[in-house]
């Protein structure tokens, strides 16, 4: 099993609903976030291109955060989901330094926190909160090992990219372009 997410940049309008839904679903304190939206503008008026992406932990196959963690608090579970065990985390910040996506943050309670792919929902057969709320329906979640999952189907038919592939992390958030 390999959980992954595909996000359609052709549909995303950058409303930030994924961010708010994550916040209320996972009780992320105000002023912090596990996911965020980036806008890239290229060109000169009126020849322009805008790409809008909802970003979060890439749940990398080769995850530097897990490698750098001195206590094993950062670990990989079923489906390749990278998690932080709060009671093992000492808050040293090594994983934060190691993440090319700046996807982690230091929770006010001390431990390091990040996207969990909403594993608590996924285990119940639901989509992650961000995916399930998106008004443009631009996010697809599922198991890459299952060719019939939403995400497999999108990756089979569309062009896509990942972020900073040269970082060698083998990220699992795919952007449909």
């Amino acid at each position: 099993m390999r959980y992954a997410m595909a996000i359609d940049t052709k549909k995303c309008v950058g409303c930030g609903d994924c961010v708010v839904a994550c916040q209320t679903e996972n009780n992320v304190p105000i002023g912090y976030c596990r996911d965020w939206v980036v806008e890239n503008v290229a060109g000169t008026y009126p020849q322009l291109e805008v790409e809008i992406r909802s970003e979060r932990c890439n749940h990398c196959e080769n995850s530097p955060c897990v490698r750098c963690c001195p206590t094993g608090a950062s670990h990989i579970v079923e489906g390749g989901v990278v998690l932080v065990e709060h009671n093992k985390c000492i808050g040293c910040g090594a994983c934060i330094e190691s993440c090319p996506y700046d996807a982690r943050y230091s929770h006010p309670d001390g431990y390091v926190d990040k996207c969990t792919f909403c594993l608590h929902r996924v285990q119940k057969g639901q989509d992650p909160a961000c995916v399930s709320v998106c008004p443009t329906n631009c996010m697809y979640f599922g198991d890459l090992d299952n060719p019939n999952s939403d995400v497999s189907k999108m990756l089979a038919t569309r062009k896509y990219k990942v972020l900073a592939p040269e970082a060698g992390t083998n990220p699992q958030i795919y952007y449909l372009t």
Partner: protein
Amino acid sequence: MKTRRDFIKISAVGTGAVTLGLSTVKLAKASEPGSIFGKKAKNQVAYERFPTYCEVCFWKCAGWTYKDEDGKILKIVGNEEDPHCNGRLCPRGTGGIGMYYDEDRLKKPLIRVGEPGNQSFREASWDEALDLVAKNLNKIKKEHGPECVALFSHGTGGKMLSHLIKAFGSPNITAPSFAQCRGPREVAFAATFGEEVLSPERTDIRDTKCLVLIGSHIGENMHNGQIQEMSEAIDNGATIITVDPRFSTAASHSKFWLPIKPATDIALLMAWIHVIINEELYDKEYIDKYAYGLDQLKTHVKNMTPEWAFGITTIEPDTIRETAREMAAASPAVIVHPGRHVTWYGDDTQRSRAIAILNALLGSWGRRGGFFNPEAVHLPKYPSPAYPKPQKSWKDAFPGQYNLVHEVLTTGICDATIPNPDLGCHLKSWIVYGTNLLASLPDQKKTLEAIENLEFMVVIDTMPMDITGYADVILPECTYLERYDGIRSSPHREPNIALRMPAAEPKYDSRPNYWIAKELGKRLGLEEYFKWNTFEEKLDWQLKKVGSSLEEMKILGVKKMPREYNDLYSLNGEDYEFNTNTGKIELYSTELANEGFDPLPKYTPHPEPPQGFYRLNYGRAPMHTFSRTANNANLTALKKENSVWVNPRVAKLWDLKNGQYVWLKNQDGVVSSFPIKVRVTERIRWDSVYMVHGFGHKEKRLSRAYGKGASDSELVTHVMTDPIMGGTGMRGNFVTFILNDPKKEVAS
């Protein structure tokens, strides 16, 4: 002239009986509200959920409020049965909990001590505050007549207050949603098709093959259902054509972006009409059968060629032709979107008319992928006596004007409040419910002048806003998560109703609007208009009349009802009589001609920015609703201030850096109260600037919103009034930059 719409009104009682028989109760399907919803697993909380529909914007998506076992509200999630949201709330709906938790909320009734505008209030009991309101309203009724009271309302809760004011005897009930927003399109579409566009819009975006947006920034305006359908259309390979001087988000998702010179839209629309007629691309059968005035239109647009339009709009003639052909190729599954906030330049009804005409030529009205025919569940009114007949109205201030307007103009109320010996101005008291008039109306000076002439003003809101500072009495309403409200029944493909019930007790000393209305009713001697004991009793009575019940709705949240008529797409050759003078789609408007207006739209040039000034364009951000959400902690986390978009060429000229704060000054010398951050971006033209509406709050009690960003409303001092429907055109304002704090400059 009887139309289908009239027929429904007549048979309202019968309708209830019919639907009663048809509806089936799906009791077994959903869990009961108030019951344990989720099993308690590891690290999991047990939830309770309560149906609601959102009050953060007018789209009113239905959802569920979730609470944990300690009774704490956790989250709000969309109701999957709801056609407004299909289970997906937008960021504001999801962040609606921020409204409930906002610690800056109005907490107790407040009574002014001292001068208006100077925010000195004392706390009072509800009894004292309501007695004071009733005393003043009764005094005004006695001295000047009940018509001298006006209600400004925005949002669901306004309905009960509106009922109160009608019972009191005043017809002056208004909302900014008409004269500051969608009024021109409703009047224009009614003049063309005999019907309005309505809300949610009847656009069949889901099935369209070509969507044309003219200044409509879907995606930045978060009209949930429309965005969802636009996404679906993108998935289905629909062509999107966006006309906008700014590279909007929608433009970035479009096949064609037409970077039009601001204020020239009518020229483009007329050129499109020219191409479609000239190249005979219009739906001939449809036009032959349903339309009136093609010949006049043909003559009218004869010289309005793409080459003519190029000189005005700066859009290449080839692009105009290509896009016109693209629309025609998709016909009738094409939508030239009527937009929503369309009060731009004072000729907005005419521009909306051009849009309506274009849609008519493409045969999209009443067709799949064009405009569907919505149907709503008709909820009978809870029995109460007939309203007294008003003797006067705001329109007395405008003799002979606005005969095509069937709603009340907010700005008309302002005019009718400022004393003028020549006009029948007579308004003495305002009740302002849920709308921050200083931000929602242009020309603040005039609004303030009107307020100064009031004898008494009440503001009912959940939050302190700029307007609350001018009230004599402030009544704190509880948020939508803490109250019942009227049943939502809005026109859609499938008629449907939705329930809002409280998920929690009202915080602080706040109360729901129906309670306020009933209590005021008692004190105004209007008890017989509020015969229900509890609001549940009223809702249950209404719901039972349409084949549901409060008990059932608490479980379902949303209930879809079958359509009474199978006419979702009704104009595929069937006979049809339109609600217009000719009974046809009026390409040539006899109604406008009768009123002395241009029966066919004409392009008229509008003023251009003077040297060193830039046209002030404003719009929406997807995570905020006007100025209402500016203090919502969940949403300010996404966007806490607005910025002014400046083209790099302009930035270079002014030596502006990204992130720098500047003040804006408009053509009338009005300077923004607060500085605004510069965003240097290619997404905006060099002759305009852009900012998101709703920021720059002056109310200090808004701890997160105070002084954040600048207010576009305060810079909109030049208003171009639409002579047809009184809409306030706001896009004719020009601003320049002030680099140093103007207050310090004055001091030194």
